[in-house]
């Protein structure tokens, strides 16, 4: 697989799995022994837990749209700098739904093996997300 092929696999993850909510496509796009280095609470390795993670995101946020801002690939790694916009329609990780909108940025690092997603790290501006949803105070409002 070339780096360009790997980029194409990763783009399908954002365009089809996340944006079109086609979670079952992961059966084709990810390996069975998928390794998650930055798991959601309770998430283990493996394809089933990856699907549960995406289902959790889709269940919490609708609409949810990822925009790919940049893709950088070298060897078997593909880095995606993205922004996303969504509405907290279902509540995230046990919090009640706020109905509020958010727009945040993040960076994912994927490992692609044999045209399938195999490993993942990420950093997401979740502080901004929680502030925008009103789940934690803005810094100015937080009393010392």
């Amino acid at each position, binding site marked *: 697989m070339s780096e360009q092929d790997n980029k194409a696999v990763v783009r399908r993850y954002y365009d089809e799995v996340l944006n079109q909510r086609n979670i079952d496509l992961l059966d084709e796009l990810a390996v069975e022994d998928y390794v998650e280095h930055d798991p959601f609470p309770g998430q283990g390795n493996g394809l089933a837990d990856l699907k549960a993670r995406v289902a959790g995101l889709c269940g919490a946020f609708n609409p949810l749209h990822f925009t790919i801002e940049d893709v950088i690939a070298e060897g078997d790694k593909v880095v995606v700098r993205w922004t996303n916009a969504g509405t907290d329609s279902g509540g995230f990780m046990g919090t009640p739904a706020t109905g509020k909108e958010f727009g945040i940025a993040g960076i994912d690092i994927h490992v692609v093996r044999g045209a399938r997603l195999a490993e993942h*790290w990420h950093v997401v501006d979740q502080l901004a997300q929680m502030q925008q949803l009103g789940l934690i105070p803005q810094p100015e409002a937080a009393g010392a």
Partner: protein
Amino acid sequence: MTIEANKAVIRRYKEEILNSRDLAALDVIVSEDYLDHAAFPKQGPGRAGLKQRVAYLFDAFDPHWTVHDIVAERDIVVARWSHSGIHRGEFLRAVAATGCAAGGLVGGTLTEWLGWASVLYVNVPIYPPPDAGIEESRMVVYGQLPDGWEPPREGR
């Protein structure tokens, strides 16, 4: 500049220059019109603004950076890193952050900062998760804490 040379600049920036607090070295590896796409509030433009930014980090947290991985293509270098430090402000608590940084490189100097690198800090009193202790608050941090990192004791 080759991709490997670009990677070396970023590794030197993170692990040598920042960890040794060598602000003068930034004159060599950062372009004067450096563009920060994820500037701190009140950060000035260019290289001078970057110096202001890192000096603020040094004072606030006395951080130590570790680079875990580097991926590069064209003139963009991505570093997966973590840092740990002590918040030396009014509250004396530990913080740890992980981040991905994307820096654009032209001719061996750092010219742009494309990424942002901020995540929830661990156990900073301003943002305590409701009714959460340290163990629980670590769970809201996306990313890895440095190997062996432990929260310092209260009042250290």
